[in-house]
């Protein structure tokens, strides 16, 4: 421990708390604010509560936690995109973030012009950009295309250019949020290699990721945020182990704060469900690959913030699919009268009977309401396909002399 304390602090977070205002129905216009005053009620929703940590110069730190635990909020606080309600954050040195690639790109201007704009948004001075421009162009592998307008670029070229700028800013602190999930495998490898290189140069790195592999690969230390607080901080391997153990247990260790377990008896009452296809027909028999819109109205005896989990179970009891929706970490405000809308872009179920379930999950991972099932549908499909889900496969034959 002593060795670490001698190091220079790059980021100091002290007793930081942050809440967001959750509006029930927010009006953005003066007209609305004046005429419908009662619509402007909001509830404070706390994301971080009295969080403190230090990050030392030259180390790379991972931020982990389940969806909506406040990781991204923490990262945004570090970049000063948002400000804490209380507490202080001190960041020493230039910060570059891979939160937004291609910030401020103008489609009509050339790649070269855009490098200047983009780099200047990261706070570089003209001479600094001049000194780096060749390196940036080389990294982007754009070659002579660099003088063409950006609107003529393919999305891959666009990404390469944007990434080259962000990574070549040579910041003292680099913040990365899930960005490594974008792009093909080649590009990801290139990203990781570059990050490794930057790390060797002594840049402080803060990485938010759900991929424990990436975290283990890049980070020396790890911070696990849970329930507005830091649950664990320290050596990456230890923290990741604790985190995975917790996630595996499905959130059973919550009651320590209250001391006693409070059983909530709230439940969903009198619900109605409508399932529409693209043409807004309400139906119960579907074809594979259709677009589905589900509207569920129900009554609930209190008001809480909850995540929504949808599950699809086949007649034989096999769970085909399950997803938790957390409204970007804030949860949904469940009220006396709630109307949820779920959308499925492509119903990739094969022939059979399926049940749709809905669960409301509070911040402590308790199920505080459920409808089992809220819908029962039949899916019709051609007999050629069998199994669990539709996987969009193709078969073709290479053209050889024999079969032409």
């Amino acid at each position, binding site marked *: 421990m002593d060795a670490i304390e001698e190091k220079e602090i790059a980021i100091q977070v002290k007793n930081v708390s942050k809440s967001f205002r959750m509006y029930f129905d927010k009006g953005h216009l*003066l007209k609305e604010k004046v005429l419908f005053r009662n619509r402007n009620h909001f509830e404070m929703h706390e994301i971080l509560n009295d969080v403190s940590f230090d990050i030392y110069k030259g180390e790379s730190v991972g931020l982990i936690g389940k969806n909506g635990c406040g990781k991204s909020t923490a990262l945004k606080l570090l970049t000063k995109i948002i400000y804490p309600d209380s507490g202080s954050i001190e960041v020493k040195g230039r910060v570059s973030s891979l939160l937004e690639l291609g910030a401020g790109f103008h489609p009509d201007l050339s790649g070269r012009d855009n490098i200047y704009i983009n780099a200047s948004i990261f706070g570089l001075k003209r001479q600094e950009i001049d000194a780096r421009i060749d390196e940036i162009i080389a990294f982007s592998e754009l070659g002579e295309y660099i003088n063409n307008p950006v609107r003529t670029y393919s999305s891959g070229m666009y990404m390469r250019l944007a990434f080259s700028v962000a990574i070549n800013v040579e910041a003292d602190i680099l913040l990365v949020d899930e960005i490594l999930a974008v792009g093909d495998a080649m590009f990801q490898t290139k990203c990781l290699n570059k990050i490794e290189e930057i790390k060797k140069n002594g840049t402080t790195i803060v990485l938010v990721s759900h991929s424990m592999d990436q975290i283990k690969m890049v980070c020396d230390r790890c911070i696990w945020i849970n329930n507005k607080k830091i649950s664990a901080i320290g050596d990456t391997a230890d923290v990741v182990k604790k985190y995975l153990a917790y996630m595996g247990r499905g959130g059973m260790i919550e009651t320590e704060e209250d001391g006693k377990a409070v059983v909530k008896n709230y439940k969903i009452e009198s619900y109605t469900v409508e399932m529409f296809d693209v043409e807004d027909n309400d139906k119960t028999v579907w074809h594979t690959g259709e677009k589905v819109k589900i509207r569920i109205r129900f009554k609930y005896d209190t008001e809480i913030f909850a995540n929504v989990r949808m599950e699809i179970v086949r007649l034989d009891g096999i769970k085909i699919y399950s997803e938790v929706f957390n409204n970007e970490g804030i949860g949904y405000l469940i009220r006396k009268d709630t109307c949820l809308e779920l959308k499925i872009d492509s119903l990739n179920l094969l022939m059979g009977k399926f049940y749709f379930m809905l669960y409301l999950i509070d911040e402590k991972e308790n199920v505080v309401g459920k409808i089992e099932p809220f819908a029962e549908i039949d899916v019709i499909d051609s007999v050629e396909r069998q199994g669990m889900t539709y996987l969009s496969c193709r078969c073709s034959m290479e053209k050889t002399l024999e079969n032409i």
Partner: protein
Amino acid sequence: MKEIYEYKEMIFSLVRRDLKGRYKNSILGFFWTFLNPLLQLLVYTFAFAVVMPMNIENYYMHLFVALVPWIFFASCLTGGARAVIDQQELVKKVYFPRHVLPIAFATSQFVNMLLTFVVVFVVLLISGIGIDLVKLCVFPLVAFIQYFLAMGVTLICSTISVYYRDMEQIFGILSIGLMYATPVVYSLESVPEEFRNALLLNPMTTIIVAYRDILFYKRMPDLQMLFITLLESLCILIIGWCIFAKMQKRFVEEF
């Protein structure tokens, strides 16, 4: 302040992006910028020189030298409201001193005005009114006073409209009203004595009158009045700066 100075390159490149983006890829690009003042010039000249004659010699020129700076001010009032909202994706994702956005907006409008003034100078020479080079020395002073004022207005408008999106409409109406509260289409002398002082409360009045003195009448503007206007403009700039600095912390949560 110091931090914004460090980000001056960003201001320059945003201004360059705006100007270049506007003029690139269209031969008419440059022309479009002048089309707006020219059309307004045409309409007002028809209204106030033909339909309701004002008894001002070379009325179109009398109007032209005032209309160009007025359009600069009005665009900061109405367009400035969008300076932050339009860049919300950027504001949400990247940190930079937020002041950069309204400053860059006002600056790009300012550069536009200066470019339009080149046309004004050409017309002055062609029409035979000519340019008095000595009096022209005061021109940069007037232009900078207006620049400060416009920047202050942009800071205020851009802040308010993040919180109240429909204020843009109101700013539009306000700018039309203000135009007639400023001697743009008429001359200050034609205003009855008892209203004249009320008009002078509007800093744009002194600025427009000064432009007209320098370019149209080729006489020295009232420097004392200009000095007061400079103070007024700086006041508005500082107020705008402080309001912006206070409110910008919650911008991201308001989007």
